[in-house]
């Protein structure tokens, strides 16, 4: 947003680029009046890795691994959406079991990602023991990922035409056991986040993003749903097995940090609901169809990552190296909302407000 005219009492302070909220670099130039922020200019580009260009020099299968490394917390969403866009372009049908497995994986990643964001929020509120406790609970899901997929962050589960491997009954047994261990502790944690006076004092009424601004800026994901916009790609255009499972879109109209926290807290519950339904309904069968032919085509695919809508675009030619691969990530849309949220906020809340959009700088700058 444009900086107001500087009065003698106004001065600029730099915030970042190191450790604004997460360990991801972004630099803010804050125009402050006393301790109130009057304007913010955002400078990014510290972690640009030229990934779109890299993708145009590697074959379709190598790009599966590359896209998984765009971001760490929503790594599976990128690999998944990339697999979908190639399948859309080349007309590859995915087996039913793979659809369910992909849905399951997405939701496991979503739970871990939301818990991470909530933990960082507790840390930024200065509530270190709650931060530790949230991370400890998240560890249950990290162990699930490690046991089912073999790694804590990059699951390497999706491939073009389905999934790279299958999950057996032992995996589902471990997942079920972990969820049963997780749920009672999580209910307790939810209660703390929603009612604790220390947390509420820091987040209620702070970082306001009115619904009109949310619509104008086109924000996505929990940021939009915290401002009363019921948008969720999983409901609008169901992909994978989302059309066959029952879940609710969590919407809050508080427009503040508290509303967005509640959205994330309740989305974890919805994700667990989806995971349980997938475990109950998953059909037997193959998990992968082969890619037979590559021809010139273009396609898009979109999915709901933990931070919001991810869109992939691909244009292929006769070779196995794509002519163009392009993606738009949710943080790119949500960045602009920071200008609105930071206006008239206190400097002390700047990091907390930045964290509320669950910023993913490495996605945005790739």
């Amino acid at each position, binding site marked *: 947003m444009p900086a107001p005219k500087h009065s003698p009492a106004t001065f600029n302070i730099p915030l970042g680029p190191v450790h604004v909220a997460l360990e991801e670099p972004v630099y803010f130039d804050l125009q402050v009046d006393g301790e109130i922020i009057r304007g913010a200019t955002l400078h990014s580009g510290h972690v640009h890795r030229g990934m779109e260009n890299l993708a145009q020099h*590697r074959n379709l299968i190598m790009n599966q691994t590359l896209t998984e490394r765009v971001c760490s917390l929503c790594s599976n969403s990128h690999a998944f959406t990339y697999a979908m866009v190639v399948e859309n372009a080349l007309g590859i049908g995915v087996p039913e079991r793979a659809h369910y497995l992909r849905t399951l994986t997405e939701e496991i990643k979503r739970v871990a990602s939301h818990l991470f964001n909530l933990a960082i929020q507790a840390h930024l509120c200065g509530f270190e023991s709650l931060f530790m406790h949230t991370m400890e609970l998240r560890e249950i899901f990290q162990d699930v990922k490690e046991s089912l997929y073999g790694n804590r962050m990059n699951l390497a589960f999706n491939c073009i035409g389905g999934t790279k491997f299958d999950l057996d009954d032992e995996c589902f047994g471990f997942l079920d056991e972990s969820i049963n261990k997780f749920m009672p502790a999580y209910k307790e944690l939810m209660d703390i986040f929603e009612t604790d006076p220390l947390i509420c004092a820091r987040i209620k009424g702070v970082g306001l993003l009115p619904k009109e601004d949310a619509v104008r800026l086109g924000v996505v994901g929990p940021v939009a749903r915290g401002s009363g916009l019921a948008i969720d790609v999983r409901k609008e255009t169901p992909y994978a097995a989302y059309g066959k499972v029952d879940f609710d879109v969590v919407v809050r109209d508080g427009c503040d940090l508290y509303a967005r926290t509640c959205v994330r807290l309740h989305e974890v519950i919805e994700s667990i609901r989806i995971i349980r339904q997938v475990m109950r309904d998953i059909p037997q069968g193959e998990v992968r169809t082969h890619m037979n032919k590559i021809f010139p085509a273009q396609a898009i695919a979109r999915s709901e990552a933990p931070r919001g809508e991810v869109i992939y675009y691909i244009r292929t030619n006769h070779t196995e190296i794509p002519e163009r691969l392009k993606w738009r990530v949710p943080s790119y849309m949500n960045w602009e909302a920071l200008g609105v949220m930071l206006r008239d906020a206190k400097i002390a809340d700047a990091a907390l407000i930045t964290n509320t959009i669950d910023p993913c700088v490495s996605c945005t700058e790739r």
Partner: protein
Amino acid sequence: MASFLNVLLQNLISGPATDPFPFGETFTPKRIRGRIVVDPGRCLGCGMCRHVCAAGAIHLQKDSKGWTITIWQDSCCLCRSCVTYCPMNAMSIDPDWHSAHAEEDKFKRIEQHTISYEPCARCGTPMRVMALDKARELYADDADVDPEEIRHLCRSCRQMSDAENSTVCVLRSDINTAQQEGRD
């Protein structure tokens, strides 16, 4: 506030949540991706693993006697593509995740196998002997073919032998297209 005091109390009773590693055991699931291993008995040297490797960790050097397959463990990003796309199931993942090593050992952490050609049982051309279970799998529908015998034949002798011995001629559609593509 009271609810968090409850959590603190429980944590005090249950003790530390962290594993005592390196002084004790840590959580190591069966499926953990530790490092890639190659089964030299199955590798056909087709190069599919190298073709799909996003990290460029696989090196394949061929000469008239055979080939050497090398996997650079420090380059490997454990994305599992080689395991998925290897047509012979020669690649697998070992759950041994202990990869800490001294700086001077960084180029020594490799998985390397040299595989030699053997002469074809019929014409003597240097060729790679197929793994027995793969030969059984490929010729499962054809009772006239002895997998043990046919796996020692080169490609052209295999085709000849097939044509001579087979009473049923199974022409799969994908064989036809594969040959056409080969000619292109």
